[in-house]
């Protein structure tokens, strides 16, 4: 008898995997269904993918989503990199600083979203892409911070010290030694921040002004208007992009140190 094996755990685990993946498989397979009534399968086709490519509303929402994710992830990564360099070595209030940096992970998103909305309106700021970029930057910080911090943790601090012993100044030793070693962590953090921003619905839902819909907000309003095969196709595209980017991030995180 193997002490590590418990009866039924294997069956339940397989059941949970089915539970996790059946909805994804159903969604993806319906997106290739030629029939307009989404429940009747006629034959495989790429019709709906053609439709979404030609849809101007989806084109502009995609463009908004990409610009938003690129700006927010870049800003969050730069901010998180600086913070990670500061917290790499222990100091008295490090725990408190890290708690503040990770605050966006703990707070309910809907609360932060409505609070930010009220701030912008109280200040008289026009809602739009700009307000979304600011709000996304804030909640992307922990997603960029954690992989960079993990990479720094495993790095040998003495390389930088050696460079300085060889008369490199602080900036030069950072640019020529620390930064290249840190690069996979930075890219992993950027990718996670990018995916988080790209997939975000709630914050964008409250902060998007007229005419600046993002892809998830567009999907939500389409679902509310009625289920169509186009939604299946665009949802599948979003799924594939997220999975690819997250796999990339995991791969970068595991690169040889």
């Amino acid at each position, binding site marked *: 008898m193997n002490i590590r094996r*418990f009866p039924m755990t294997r069956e339940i685990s397989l059941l949970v995997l089915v539970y996790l993946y*059946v909805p994804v498989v159903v969604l993806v397979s319906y997106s290739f269904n030629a029939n307009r009534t989404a429940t009747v399968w006629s034959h495989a086709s790429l019709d709906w993918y053609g439709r979404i490519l030609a849809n101007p509303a989806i084109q502009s929402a995609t463009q908004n989503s990409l610009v938003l994710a690129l700006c927010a992830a870049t800003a969050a990564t730069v901010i998180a990199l600086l913070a990670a360099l*500061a917290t790499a070595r222990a100091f008295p209030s490090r725990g408190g600083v890290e708690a503040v940096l990770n605050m966006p992970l703990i707070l309910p998103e809907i609360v932060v979203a409505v609070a930010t909305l009220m701030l912008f309106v109280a200040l008289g700021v026009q809602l739009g892409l700009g307000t979304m970029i600011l709000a996304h930057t804030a909640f992307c*910080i922990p997603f960029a911070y954690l992989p960079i911090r993990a990479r720094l943790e495993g790095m040998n601090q003495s390389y930088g010290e050696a460079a300085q012993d060889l008369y490199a100044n602080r900036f030069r030793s950072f640019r020529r030694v620390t930064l290249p070693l840190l690069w996979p962590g930075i890219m992993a953090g950027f990718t996670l921040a990018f995916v988080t921003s790209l997939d975000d619905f709630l914050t964008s839902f409250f902060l998007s002004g007229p005419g600046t819909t993002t892809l998830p907000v567009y999907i939500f309003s389409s679902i509310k208007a009625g289920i169509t095969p186009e939604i299946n196709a665009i*949802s599948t595209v979003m799924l594939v992009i997220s999975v690819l980017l997250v796999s990339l991030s995991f791969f970068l995180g595991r690169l040889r140190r």
Partner: protein
Amino acid sequence: MTGNPTLRRLGLLTPALMTIAVLIGVPLMLLFWISLLQKGGSSGVDWGAAPSLGNYIRLVWEEDFDGTMILNTSYLVILLRSILQAAVTTGLSLLFGLPVALWMAGLSRGQRDMMLLLITIPFWTNLLVRNYAWLIILRDDGWLSQAINFVSPGGPIQLLYNDLAVAIGLTYSFLPFMILPLYTVFEKFDWRLLEAAHDLGATRSRALRRVLIPIAMPGIAAGSLLVFIPCLGAFVTPALLGGGKTLMLGNIIQMQFGASRNWPFGAALAVVLLGLMLFVMVCMAIWRNRRVK
């Protein structure tokens, strides 16, 4: 760069701390303040109003035409439903998450990594899209409803827009948060303890109850917190899979900023959600301290 390490550290931390202070700290303070004001004006808030607890009183009491206060339970019911729904989801996640984590811990190194990847991938995909997938499965002309109808005919069965559909969607959304902390505990578990219990004549279920579960308690607590808290503030799942009778806190907050346009009352509801979350976290911290002693 300056030579003083404390100044240098402060300089590096400033952008991050400032961003979070301005874009999260300040809005939260404004939220508290607005929750004490009244609705009005073009922006939805009467800025000149004297601060009062009126919005919080409105959660429970309603003013009748003649000025007497009568009990209004509609918001309390929604609050209670959110808590119950979060509790049910946490229970379901534990029921299914515990066996999965236990099974994963007994696998070989490569299989474990594979399972970890399979469990985390759904977490990183779009929450909206994942809940939408359940909408397709559960709707009246979906294959699940048709299959049930085929086995026991009697007209289409309503699977959507009820508490069960919301529970399925919420469990689907947050199950990985339960599995991962549990797995972390089981991965480090000293299996010789189970052997010892076995040698001392404990049956398998007794060893599970008296040895494994008590040691897994920190993981169970962490996982429960990670599932319970996002469930409390859930919006997407009840908005897509629930109906008018399954509203949760997140839905009525959104309504105050949408159709009802009563921002101060919405702010008060958001503060209640924050308070509830803090209460749960403090309870958990107290419990953990007691355990250590």
